């Protein structure tokens, strides 16, 4: 019960510590899903009593915290994975590394990684951001590598021929050409991070996972309501980054809107590479 305690007690203080004040009792005449929706939109008394839970305001705070840790994790992952992916892709080495990272990444469950950190490293925002960041690295790294490798070698040779430095080739030729695939990787990572931030409360970081992990306070309605919000936020993240990915894709390469694109090409590693 370490996580979430802060929020609950804050609300208790606000409500004056008196049950029944400031919020209505939990409704008992609603179906499961309507109850959950009610939880999202209006405050109610907690299951254990003595506190107000749910409603737009609390979920909003939790969502802000949820997205904060996610964004920090994603930015961290970008700072690490992007340069490595660009460098490996540019020199054309490390295919084994790029592919292994994604294979190993898949084999380590998020919960196991989180539990490991909590047990051995510690709790808190930074640690959880590191866990989420570690999850975000493989897709970005692999896609950046693959994206750069897919840049037309003739174009690169021509650029070298007209006197661009290696750095300029990466920045002006390979990076722009790889951008759509890189963004596909970022999108994958972002969705994974936002989804996994749900279990951040295990590391003492507020997120939309609090109502899910504390049914003793939030009840079944809180669990389900938060699950709905988490699902919507993840789908929204996916859609938003899908829009960005589309925007950075040169027009001729775009898939038509009316035909749903193949999303998340398996880390955009062509199947032949994935096999080896």
């Amino acid at each position: 019960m370490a996580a979430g305690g802060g929020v609950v007690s804050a609300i208790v203080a606000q409500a004056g510590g008196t049950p029944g004040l400031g919020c209505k009792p939990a409704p008992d005449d609603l179906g499961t899903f309507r109850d959950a929706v009610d939880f999202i939109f209006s405050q109610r008394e907690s299951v254990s009593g003595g506190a107000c839970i749910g409603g737009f305001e609390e979920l909003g705070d939790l969502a802000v915290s949820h997205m904060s840790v996610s964004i920090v994790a994603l930015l961290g992952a970008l700072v690490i994975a992007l340069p490595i992916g660009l460098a490996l892709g540019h020199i054309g080495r490390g295919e084994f590394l790029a592919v292994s990272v994604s294979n190993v990444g898949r084999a380590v469950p998020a919960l196991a990684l989180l539990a490991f950190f909590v047990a051995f490293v510690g709790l808190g925002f930074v640690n959880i951001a590191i866990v989420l960041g570690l999850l975000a690295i493989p897709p970005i790294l692999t896609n950046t590598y693959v994206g750069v490798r897919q840049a037309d070698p003739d174009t690169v040779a021509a650029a070298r021929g007209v006197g661009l430095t290696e750095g300029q080739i990466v920045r002006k030729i390979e990076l722009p050409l790889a951008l759509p695939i890189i963004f596909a990787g970022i999108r994958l990572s972002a969705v994974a991070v936002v989804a996994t931030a749900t279990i951040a409360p295990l590391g003492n970081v507020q997120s939309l996972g609090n109502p899910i992990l504390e049914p003793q306070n939030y009840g079944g309605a809180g669990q389900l309501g938060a699950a709905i919000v988490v699902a919507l936020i993840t789908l929204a993240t996916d859609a938003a980054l899908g829009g960005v990915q589309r925007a950075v894709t040169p027009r001729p390469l775009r898939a038509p809107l009316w035909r749903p694109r193949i999303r998340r090409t398996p880390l955009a590693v062509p199947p032949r590479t994935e096999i080896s």
Partner: protein
Amino acid sequence: MTGADVLAAIEIRDRTGTGCVAENGFCPDWIADNIDKYWSPLLEHVFLSVTSVAIGFAIAFTLALLAHRFRWITGPTIAVTGALYTVPSVAAFLLLLPITGRGNGTAIVALVAYTLLILFRNITTGLRNVPEEAVSAARGMGLTDGQILRQIELPLAMPEILAGLRIAFTTTVGLATLAFFAGGGGLGEQLYSERAGTGGLNFKSNVVVAGGLTVLLASFGDLIFLTIQRLATPWRRAVAS
């Protein structure tokens, strides 16, 4: 299992007398003594993963064969399975609870939903990548559509299909750590096992064993599918050598 139960179990079984458990260190002796208690979560985990991938494969394979004949099925299938894939697994387990109740069934339904996109996409990619001239030669020689599918297209799509199974299996093993939210058991329960009495931290030895077992399970499954892949595609090795 509550945190207190875990702690009780830990203390009762601590015969080492070194205080390792009380200090929440990494305790090989404790692990040796308590390895039994991981056996049934591991079996549950294996059951969840294998069943889900098997059911997911059956569904995705059927859909892929339909999409192979009727191209228009591909788009909607990818859209729907893609949305399923995006929903966070914890949310999916909870969203299913009111519909399917607590237990294995719910966990498997959610896990199956996650495998669909990966498997469907790899199977259709595999079928699409079959060299066109092999199919037209087969048709010209008088193989029926069914024979072309069984003798030519499916064997040639094998590498991609098995690559899909590898990804689906490792992903499912990972997601199944969260199945206990739906009452599905598995190794996740051990990893979660709350933090009561250990200063807010999980018991380290426990994390290492439970986490290690999930990673081992995922890697072992990966290895099995990789071996099948090698055995099922002798022509690739022959050509490479």
